[in-house]
């Protein structure tokens, strides 16, 4: 399956992937509204780690044998037929078990909603927002 991969040598640490991920997961999908008018604010599912000059983006790896799926106490996280690891916000109770078990530290805590937020590979788009909006092609969406 296609996954998002980071190219550390091209990541410039601008964090635009985070900005656009948040926007994509907002109600309005309007960048300004999403950041200034929507409460609670959506949260980005991608996280840029940085220790200059190195930086890279981390998001759910959509593991082949996802430990989060095995650990989720509500069944909110499942792996669908395409291999995507999907998270059902309705079911999630914010117990943070997935936060505790994901070896990549991918699930992020949305404290306002008390839910986990994790990469869903942007179901409404052909290419995930982070990949498409990266100004330096440091993220790629491909089969490896």
């Amino acid at each position: 399956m296609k996954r998002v991969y980071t190219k550390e040598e091209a990541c410039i640490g601008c964090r635009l992937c985070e900005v656009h991920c948040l926007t994509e997961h907002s109600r309005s999908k309007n960048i300004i509204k999403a950041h200034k008018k929507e409460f609670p604010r959506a949260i980005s599912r991608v996280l840029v780690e940085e220790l200059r000059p190195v930086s890279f983006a981390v998001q759910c790896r959509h593991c082949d044998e996802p430990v989060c799926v095995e650990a989720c106490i509500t069944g909110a996280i499942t792996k669908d037929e395409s291999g995507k690891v999907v998270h059902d916000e309705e079911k999630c109770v914010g117990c943070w078990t997935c936060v505790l078990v994901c070896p990549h530290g991918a699930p992020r805590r949305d404290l306002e909603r008390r839910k986990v937020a994790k990469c869903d590979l942007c179901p409404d788009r052909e290419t995930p927002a982070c990949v498409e909006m990266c100004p330096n092609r440091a993220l790629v969406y491909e089969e490896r």
Partner: protein
Amino acid sequence: MSYVIIGNSVAAVGAIEAIRRIDKETPITVISDEPYAVYSRPLISELLAGQVKEEMMGYRAPDFYERHGVEAKLGTRVVSIDSKKKTVKTEAGESIGYNKLLIATGGTPFVPPMKGRELGRVMTFIKMDDAKKIEEMLPELKHVVVIGAGLIGLKAAESLHHRGVKVTVVELADRVMATVLDVEAGKVVQDALENAGIDIITGDTVDEILGDNMGLVNGVKMKSGEALDCDAVIVAIGVVPNAAFAKASGVEVNRGIITDDHMRTNLPDVYAAGDVTEGLDYLSGDNRVMPIWPNAYIQGKIAGFNMTGEERIFTGGLAVNSIELFGVPVVTAGMSNVDSDDLEVLKKSEGGSYRKIVLRDNKVVGAVLVGNIDRAGLVTGLIRERIDISAMRERLLADDFGYIDFPVELRKERLGVAL
């Protein structure tokens, strides 16, 4: 050919999903004495708290059994196994044949012999029906005593508190969650509970449950001699494997059903998984009962694969616990609270936040995070993958510990290759 699974919870689901990855044909029968389709047992506290509705308790979609070709015999109790004839017998006398059998009967609450334990409103809290029963009593409840400050006891206490009931938790140890938390972490959690208005009594226990002339609880008498008035008691001092019927049928049981690395029991074609087992502990290398949800799923999965003939090895369970009480999240992994000379402890505590990492031979073997628990899984991953942390030692306690602190090669491998 047929698969039979006794118990209808997460271990059963783990097995069903694994079986169906390999074998799409052979019928599967699941037998459970609970009348419900598989639900998220840990959510019974949220159900009681009114935070989750019953419709949302389902662990899998309503069409789960249908889609997986499973016949679910609910409300049916198994009383024995005949491993020669390869049948199981139900309470109603029905005999069901199997080729491969999985025992996934979970645990049952341990209620110690004490005076008054048979009184009305002496409760345990591990089933959906327990939550419903307490819900029915709620109008009568003003003060409830919870015996045991483990995860289940505290969740029950929090739920009742949310419903406006005064709660006192009694714990024999000197702190809450004593099995997984050290003194410092225990204190943070206890403070949160007490600040919220829950009374906690440690270093003491209930000697006797007192009842009124209607046979209902009206108080408890403590070991210290003190007496408390209350309208109900919830006993939550632990669960024991539900293995008695299995033992009687010839399955080898110590504290739980003894399983090998294929999740096989001593009887041919009989497997066991979940809270009922005494499986391998990843860190200690010993067998022990590890009654946590993820472990039950994984054991069920391994059993399921092996039942189809697809060989998978159970490499051992890792104890992980995550709980949030009154807004204070607490997570633990591995040997979070073990004292031993060969262990090195790194810790840091500041402003309601606590971080502790336990090392052995430069590898992480345990962790406790309270407050800021973001990306705790990175640490759990270090434990599970037995990664040498010499290069990142200094950063393990940092709130923003991340992949950036990993050696480059390891990081690239982890980010480039799906695990």
